[in-house]
């Protein structure tokens, strides 16, 4: 039956597009994860600014991939391919909100994230692709909207990274950050509690891990508070920084 030949074509085209999007999503995931590792190396030390700049470069690269996703999805129903790109987008939300927290000590909104995901065809690459003549000068715009659910799942994962940041801050002698984080995480936890079970199942699942992260941070703050009362604060920082020096010497860092 000849109609089946056309079915074959239709299905193949759909599957190919899905695969391309899966590949892009994987790239987005990997690069976002690397950005997060980079950001963990940030301290208030002199190279902090460099790290932030480098993270911005990395995130711009991720956004270029997201632009490709947006281009693949032109004329398509985004939800048909959502499962292909969701993991990558969640990881991106995690990375970009982590960077935003380090810079501003606050939570980036989903609107702010989506504002950064509007792309126009001002780059040179676009003009070489279009075969239209100079009359047709309409700027091409592509955009991708992170869904509320992907945003929530990304923020939930962010709390895990913030917990790690808290523990490593204590090790670095930074005794202010843990308390800031504790307050920040509590706000996020309150937000998730407010949403409760009205979201999809995946969101509810993350709530459990979130609670554990919050508990770890609260315990770290407790420890600091208890030890802090035994040792004067300025010496407490020395205790921590000496520890760090020893570790650095071991690793042969300058």
């Amino acid at each position, binding site marked *: 039956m000849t109609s089946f030949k056309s079915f*074959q074509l*239709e299905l193949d085209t759909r599957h190919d597009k899905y695969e391309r999007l899966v590949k892009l999503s994987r790239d987005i995931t990997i690069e976002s994860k690397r950005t997060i590792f980079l950001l963990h190396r940030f301290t208030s030390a002199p190279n902090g600014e460099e790290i932030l700049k480098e993270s911005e470069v990395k995130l711009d690269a991720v956004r270029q991939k997201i632009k490709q996703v947006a281009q693949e999805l032109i004329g398509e129903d985004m*939800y048909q391919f959502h499962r292909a790109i969701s993991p990558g987008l969640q990881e991106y939300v995690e990375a970009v909100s982590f960077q935003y927290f380090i810079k501003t000590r606050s939570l980036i*909104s989903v609107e702010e994230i989506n504002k950064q995901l509007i792309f126009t065809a001002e780059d040179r690459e676009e003009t070489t692709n279009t075969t239209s003549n100079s009359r047709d000068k309409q700027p091409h715009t592509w955009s991708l909207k992170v869904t509320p659910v992907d945003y929530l799942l990304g923020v939930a994962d962010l709390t895990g990274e913030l917990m790690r940041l808290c523990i490593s801050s204590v090790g670095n002698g930074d005794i202010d950050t843990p308390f800031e984080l504790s307050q920040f995480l509590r*706000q996020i936890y309150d937000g998730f509690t*407010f*949403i409760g079970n009205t979201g999809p199942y995946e969101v509810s699942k993350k709530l459990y891990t979130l609670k554990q992260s919050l508990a770890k941070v609260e315990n770290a703050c407790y420890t600091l508070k208890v030890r802090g009362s035994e040792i004067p604060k300025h010496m407490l920082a020395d205790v921590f920084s000496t520890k760090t020096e020893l570790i650095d010497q071991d690793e042969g860092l300058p």
Partner: protein
Amino acid sequence: MSVSDMFAALQGALGQDQDIREEIRKVVQALEQTAREILTLLQGVHQGPGFQHIPKKCQKAREHFSTVRTQMESLKTKFPADQYYRFHEHWRFVLQRLVFLAAFVVYLESETLVTREAVAEILGIEADRERGFHLDIEDYLSGVLTLASELARLAVNSVTAGDYSRPLRISAFINELDSGFRLLNLKNDSLRKRYDGLKYDVKKIEEVVYDLSIRGLNKEATVGAGGEK
């Protein structure tokens, strides 16, 4: 915006989503009821006397399909038109069932495979995504595969009822369907699983045809084909 404001807004969006799904579920339930009515009606063709009444059953089924069309119209209004795949899972099952029923009616009437466009018309929906609430190609193919199983059963029951020519025609039809499906490159999803069942349907029908031919019953059928239809 404070963190709590952000989450309040997100909660709003999630709540809206839940409301839409609730509305969709209600209409889908109604569609499922109609589908059950059509199925009960058409199941009757497997019984002996049912064979004479086939045209009448098809007509009645077609009347039920107009109810389906009304319910589809209602379903279309329950969500934004460009978010078909966001809510697709809710009606996927009943839509596949309806495709099967439409294909069954068309087969009983004309012994041909209903086209995607024809099914879409029977159900009151579009064939293309661009034109609105449409029939996804995988749902169409799933429904057609269910038809194959039904026809395998019909072949068996035809023989029991004394109709020895129908199985031969069913066999030709299913074999053509099978060669069509073999052109498709499927992924390991539910459609693939259902397609894997097709070879058992083919085998079953072949066995029926074999049983008839070794007993010379099919020759009787072709000789007496003039009075049969």
